[in-house]
């Protein structure tokens, strides 16, 4: 089966600055694909090239196995960087305009407005909307014409915690319909909470890509606590790569292949009973930081 998106050797230079460097990437149908990278790492530029608003310096990409034309874009809903609308038009009128451009049925407008809970504000001018409402209108607009792919670029940027939670719920709801979603974000936990697959960008280079769940394989971290001081015991344990003291617990990062039960047995043999022992999967955040550090 064709991947939804296939990127080959895509490069973009802005003068001497290389914003995207020789990127190769595939996104399969139904994936929620995270593009993770700090600000300025080239996420928006990549998405801009995929939507034909930024002309690539070299390389190519295919949507649905074909060269992209403006007809392809009508089947992709995308919001890049910020919501963009005509400020003097109402939410409703803005969506009517998008529907005309996409060739979508105007009857869908009421549905998407309901989905993002903007129905009662649809006749107010866009410029009177709060940031959260603007983001939601952008998602509504992207959903017109029932797109197979949804591209969201930092959709929770600048929102308060409630707005962030709302948008994430919305993304999950949309993903559960089986749509492919590409989500660019500089927030790890956002990608972790929402995505199935992800790639990490750093200064225009893709330094990692794979399923989100794969990342949590590898070395484990164990949180331990006992009634006695563990400092000596833990430092004599062979299977750890680091021991940290945090919030009254010891955080032990295990070396590859060592499991938490090995640590438990070790302590038991030393005559220590752990009162608290929790195996933590390696968090994406640490991996991410490691990947960024590795790629130096």
């Amino acid at each position: 089966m064709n991947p939804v998106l296939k990127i080959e050797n895509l490069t973009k230079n802005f003068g001497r600055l290389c914003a995207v460097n020789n990127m190769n990437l595939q996104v399969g149908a139904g994936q929620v694909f995270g593009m993770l990278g700090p600000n300025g790492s080239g996420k928006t530029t990549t998405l801009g090239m995929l939507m034909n608003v930024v002309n690539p310096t070299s390389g190519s990409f295919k949507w649905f196995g074909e060269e992209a034309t403006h007809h392809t874009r009508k089947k992709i809903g995308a919001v890049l960087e910020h919501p963009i609308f005509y400020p003097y038009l109402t939410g409703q009128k803005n969506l009517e305009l998008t529907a005309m451009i996409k060739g979508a049925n105007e009857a869908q407008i009421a549905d998407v407005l309901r989905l993002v809970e903007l129905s009662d504000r649809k006749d107010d001018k866009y410029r009177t909307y709060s940031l959260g409402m603007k983001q939601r209108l952008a998602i509504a607009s992207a959903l017109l014409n029932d797109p197979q792919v949804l591209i969201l670029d930092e959709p929770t940027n600048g929102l308060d915690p409630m707005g962030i939670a709302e948008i994430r719920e919305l993304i999950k709801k949309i993903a559960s319909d089986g749509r492919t979603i590409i989500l660019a974000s500089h927030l790890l936990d956002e990608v972790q909470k929402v995505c199935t697959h992800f790639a990490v960008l750093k200064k225009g280079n893709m330094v990692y890509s794979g399923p989100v769940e794969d990342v949590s394989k590898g070395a484990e971290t164990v949180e331990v606590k006992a009634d006695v001081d563990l400092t000596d015991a833990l430092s004599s344990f062979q299977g750890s790569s680091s021991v940290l003291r945090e919030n009254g617990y010891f955080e032990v990062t295990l070396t590859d292949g060592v499991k938490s039960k090995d640590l438990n047995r070790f302590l038991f043999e030393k005559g220590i009973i752990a009162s608290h022992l929790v195996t933590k999967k390696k968090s994406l955040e640490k991996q991410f930081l490691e990947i960024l550090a590795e790629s130096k």
Partner: protein
Amino acid sequence: MLHLLKIDLKKMTSYRTFWVVCGLYFFTLGMTTASGMEFLKWLVRMGASFGTEINITRIPFYHFPDVWQNITYVSGFFKAILAFMVVISITNEFTYRTVRQNIIDGLSRKQFIISKVLTNILLSLMSMLMVFVIALVTGLVYSPTIVFTDLVMDLEFFGAYFLEVFAFLSFALLLGMVIQRSGLTIVILVLSQMIEAIIRANVDDYVPWLIPYFPMESISNLIPLPFPRYVFREIQDYVSITSVLVVAGWTFVFNYLAYLKLKKSDI
């Protein structure tokens, strides 16, 4: 095509500035061209009180077929107001970055330009129609006798008028596309007349035959100044094919450059 025009009109018809500027345009255009006779009569009354004797009503400004060239010539000055609207329309797309979203949503860059060009054509046609109605009505009111052959004579001035407005709006579109900021674009649009005049003055000393091919010059030459005929001078009372071809050429170049600019740029 019609679909693209509808898209651009949809952006405009809920925009207050659009109605204000267009209203201003059609109002001043209409008032000025239609009230010329009343203005002249007023001048005569003023003149009479100073003891000067001019029988202005004998000058056939509004008589067929003179009225066609006279009114299309005068109306040409107002196209700048319409051009401001075109500048606002295109630079808004850049300041709001809506051109970017339009492309993302599935317009091609060519379609985007075509939608703007179609609006320019529509505005030019509406302006032409309005000028025609004013000229027809004033002609019917002020011509002492109405001779059908006079009435249908010289109608080619409306074709020339349409081209004059459309060419200028195309130029405004290109400038807006390149400069992308409304204030600066309007300043450059106004200055471009002067800048070209300075260049022409210099060119005139070396290659005078080049003068009629300058864009602003050729646009203003489409409809020649008619008034010297009332002081018994020869005027060009027809539209020259060469002017039409030159202006049509420039119009194509303006719109094509606007397209190339959009095609090449990251938006």
